[in-house]
């Protein structure tokens, strides 16, 4: 059994899981289990919020370490589920290392839901949350429209690989702009619910909770990095919304907040 391949397999699995939004300790756990069932001794794995390390030695050999920088991070639970299944069948000995590597490459290339389905999902979620937060039925309908329209520029940005702060700022700005237009057309009543509902898919509530969970789990490094990340995302969104609101007030007048 080639130890290099085992490390490569472990790193690949870790990379897919981390970039699909798995928790730190789950990534480390899966990587370690893969290394151990490939027969490496002194196996260790380490995962921070942006990088993964795997290390191990073949019996009687020198130890090998590999590290990987993970840049893009999203949420894709289907991939996490598949990697989990693969690591289980690897542990049961149903699949060899080479076959597992090619299976992982297949998993990595799996397409997500189509764009229109994701758009509708975001819009439905937004309208439901607008109402759950206390909005009325018209507010919810407006949030649906706003969320749907707002996701279109975001998908365009995604195609050109614009991510991070700028994407969130534009998302917040678009949401505020659409909400203001809808309000001034006389369609909605409460601007707060429309804006908050439509930016709901962007807001990092889950990241913040996961970050605190990481810290309670003892992964202090990735936990504090994720808290920072969550607040950065929120700042970007709030800046987008705030800027558009300020501009609208200075151009068209009136108090909108």
């Amino acid at each position, binding site marked *: 059994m080639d130890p290099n391949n085992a490390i490569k397999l472990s790193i690949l699995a870790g990379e897919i899981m981390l970039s699909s939004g798995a928790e730190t300790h789950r990534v480390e756990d899966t990587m370690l289990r893969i290394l151990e069932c490939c027969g490496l001794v002194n196996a260790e794995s380490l995962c921070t919020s942006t990088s993964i390390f795997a290390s191990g030695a073949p019996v009687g050999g020198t130890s090998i370490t590999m590290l990987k920088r993970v840049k893009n991070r999203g949420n894709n*639970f289907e991939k996490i589920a598949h990697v989990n299944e693969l690591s289980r069948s690897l542990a049961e000995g149903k699949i060899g290392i080479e076959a597992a590597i090619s299976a992982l490459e297949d998993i990595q290339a799996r397409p997500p839901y189509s764009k229109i389905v994701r758009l509708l999902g975001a819009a439905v*979620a937004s309208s439901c949350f607008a109402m*759950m937060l206390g909005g009325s039925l018209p507010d919810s309908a407006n949030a649906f429209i706003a969320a749907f329209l707002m996701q279109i520029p975001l998908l365009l940005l995604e195609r050109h690989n614009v991510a991070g702060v700028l994407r969130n700022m534009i998302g917040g700005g678009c949401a505020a702009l659409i909400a203001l237009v809808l309000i001034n057309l006389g369609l909605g009543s409460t601007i707060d619910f429309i804006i*908050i509902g439509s930016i709901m898919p962007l807001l990092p509530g889950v990241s913040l*909770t996961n970050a605190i969970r990481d810290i309670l789990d003892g992964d202090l490094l990735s936990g504090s990095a994720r808290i920072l990340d969550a*607040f950065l995302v929120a700042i970007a969104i709030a800046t987008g919304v705030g800027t558009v609101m300020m501009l609208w007030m200075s151009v068209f007048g009136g108090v909108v*907040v």
Partner: protein
Amino acid sequence: MMLQILLAFAGTVGFSIIFNVPRRELALCGIAGACGWFVLQLTMGFIPNAGVADTFFAAMAVTCISRIFSFMRKMPVTVYMIPGIIPLVPGTGIYHTMFNAIMGDYTEALLWGIQTLRTAGVIAVGLLVVLTLPPKLFSFVADACINIFAIRRRLRR
């Protein structure tokens, strides 16, 4: 109340699509989310001034049901748990914190900020409490559920 639960179900399913949950698990994610929201509303109704206890119980309920689902469907817990806690999670709180800070209302920003951290912390503790319980507890319930379904299917035939 019924409407609220339906909304939580639909909202969670919508979010699950963004998180790319496998198609067959979407409905279960929705149930987890609706269950959390139901427990939250229930606790809020029974205990006035519950503070953070309502969120705590709701997070525990979501994690319990997610662990049962994960044993039933042989999927990682995350697939159900993360969509399930979305209705509880303080996404709007972070936004209010930052928005007020940017608009210059620091008192309001501080209030929202503390409340956000508190809610997120309580949810995280709720998840951890249930996640540290022995797996046998949940696999037992999951097996029981599977058996009940199997018997019912046999009876229908």
